[in-house]
């Protein structure tokens, strides 16, 4: 019986094992920082050296040129061992070295150092204790520290993303590390799943599931898998968006008429109407100050983005260029509005500076959907279609760095970037 139970456990776990997303970079920043990341000394040597994970993170950001270090004779594992001349010769501006020790009780300790090769001094020296299961997340945290020290901006390597996959037989809601590794299945359904939205504390996802043959909003805990129905009113229940304090959600209900925007407490009580029109009002999203809700409406004849006070009031139009502007998302720093615009016959990611109103079209793809900001406001993750297959892509908010994320064998869509790690 014990063996039978083990078999079940194995099957349960295997639900989470699936093809990983792979990420390709297109383009890069004009000025990349040349950095050397020396393999961390560790015995026994692991499959993936921590330095390789850190280097891949930095390279993927498009802001770093990660140098080949194998030709350097001396491979230091701490600050004292660094001979700067060798790294200047490699034209490195920055250098990361480190080592990992095994502690009693199956724990590990990493010590790492970030050196300024030009000034020949140490910028960072830190130690972390972690379990073997935390190996990758620890690497991502170190990459975040290096990124912030050298660029002045918060890193987003130790964050999570969610997305929906579609295969011939079913849909799944996935949560993965920001580099596409460690994908885990949160929900499997024969019916569509759309519009996943992270709670601000990163512990829950709200999403729309069609499993009962109509759109119903659920909220599900990442750690326990338990979920509850947030909204199941007559008609459609869709487009959940969390308020910045996590206490309420903006949602869209249709009842027996057109889609309208409401807010509701996170426990499903306290429903309050926000818009009252005879036209379509949908895709609400909270501005980070919690005072304003941006949304899509066709009240002017074509779908455009509007904003309304979060307590309700008179909507004001926000987008003016083009005849189809939908799916608004406000950057976490409150400065940019990303959306999907129909530009020259193609659905593309655009951003508008909220103070100046200036618009930039960022993507060069054609069927873009569902933009989602990284917590540092620097990258926009979105869904697109390449060769007839749904895939994810990312573009930096200045348009200089582009990435493609693809998963073999399935259609990927509906990305949502989780909040900053604690």
């Amino acid at each position: 019986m014990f063996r039978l139970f083990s078999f079940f456990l194995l099957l349960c776990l295997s639900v989470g094992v699936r093809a990983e997303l792979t990420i390709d970079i297109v383009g890069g920043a004009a000025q990349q920082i040349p950095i050397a990341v020396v393999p961390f000394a560790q015995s026994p040597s692991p499959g993936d050296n921590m330095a390789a994970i850190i280097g891949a993170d930095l390279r993927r950001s498009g802001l770093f040129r990660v140098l080949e270090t194998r030709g350097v004779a001396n491979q230091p594992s701490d600050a004292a061992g660094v001979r700067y001349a060798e790294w200047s010769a490699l034209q490195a501006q920055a250098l990361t070295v480190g080592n990992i020790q095994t502690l009693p009780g199956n724990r590990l300790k990493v010590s790492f150092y970030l050196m300024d090769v030009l000034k020949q001094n140490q910028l960072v020296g830190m130690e972390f204790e972690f379990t073997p299961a935390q190996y990758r997340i620890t690497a991502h945290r170190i990459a975040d520290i290096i990124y912030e020290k050298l660029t002045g901006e918060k890193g987003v390597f130790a964050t999570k993303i969610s997305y929906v996959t579609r295969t011939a037989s079913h849909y799944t809601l996935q949560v993965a590390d920001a580099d596409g590794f460690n994908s885990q299945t949160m929900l499997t359904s024969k019916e569509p799943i759309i519009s996943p939205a992270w709670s601000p504390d990163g512990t829950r996802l709200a999403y729309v599931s069609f499993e009962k043959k109509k759109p119903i909003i659920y909220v599900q805990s990442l750690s326990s898998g338990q979920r509850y129905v947030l909204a199941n009113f007559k008609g459609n229940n869709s487009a959940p968006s969390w308020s910045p304090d996590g206490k309420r959600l903006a949602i869209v209900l249709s009842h027996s008429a057109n889609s309208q925007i409401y807010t509701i407490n996170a426990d499903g009580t306290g429903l309050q109407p926000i818009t009252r029109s005879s036209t379509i009002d949908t895709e609400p999203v909270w501005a980070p100050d919690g005072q304003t809700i941006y949304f899509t409406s066709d009240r002017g004849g074509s779908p455009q983005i509007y904003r309304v006070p979060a307590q309700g009031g008179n909507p004001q139009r926000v987008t003016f260029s083009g005849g189809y502007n939908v799916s608004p998302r406000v950057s976490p720093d409150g400065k940019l509005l990303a959306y999907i615009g129909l530009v020259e016959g193609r659905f593309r990611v655009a951003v508008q500076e909220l103070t100046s109103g200036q618009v930039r079209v960022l993507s060069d793809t054609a069927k873009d959907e569902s933009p989602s900001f990284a917590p540092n406001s620097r990258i926009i993750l979105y869904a697109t279609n390449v060769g007839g297959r749904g895939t994810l892509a990312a573009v930096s908010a200045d348009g200089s760095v582009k990435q493609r994320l693809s998963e073999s064998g399935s259609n990927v869509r509906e990305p949502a970037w989780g909040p900053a790690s604690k």
Partner: protein
Amino acid sequence: MNKQLMASLLVVLLLGACSNKAAKDASAPVADKSPAMADTGAPAAGGDTVASVVADDESGKSALLNDPSSILYKRSIYFDYDSDTINAEYRPLIEAHAKYLLAHPNARMVLQGNTDERGAREYNLSLGQRRAVAVKRVMNVLGVQDTQIETVSFGEEKAKLGCAAESCYKDDRRVDIAYQVEK
């Protein structure tokens, strides 16, 4: 026990094992205790009850609605691009279903709006809803109350895969009539 039943029981056991594992954290609010696996196709209880459910299903069926020669057998209303205007050719179809609802006050209908795949999913969900509402309003004018009709939308979610031309987009822009309760 046949192999299929055995397999079904295994799935039930397996789901039970998974959900028990997930249920340890009691701090999360619980309104829906089902495991986070929607519509897996696994029977809810022992395999023996499945056959009788299928047999019972027939008792609620309406001969009128299921007669292929009846206009009531037709269940789809098609629309032009970005439009919720009901073309005249569908009036007899809508009138027949309205008449059926008026004659069968316990019957319950769901109008399911659909769009083609172009554009944003949530916006298309609202566009599909607008089409379902347009059909419902005609039925309202014919005397049918909202208590008998629910309008929902699948947006672009049921659109044909790999469609890239009007020849198949036009099949996606429709409202389907589904009966939750037939009589």
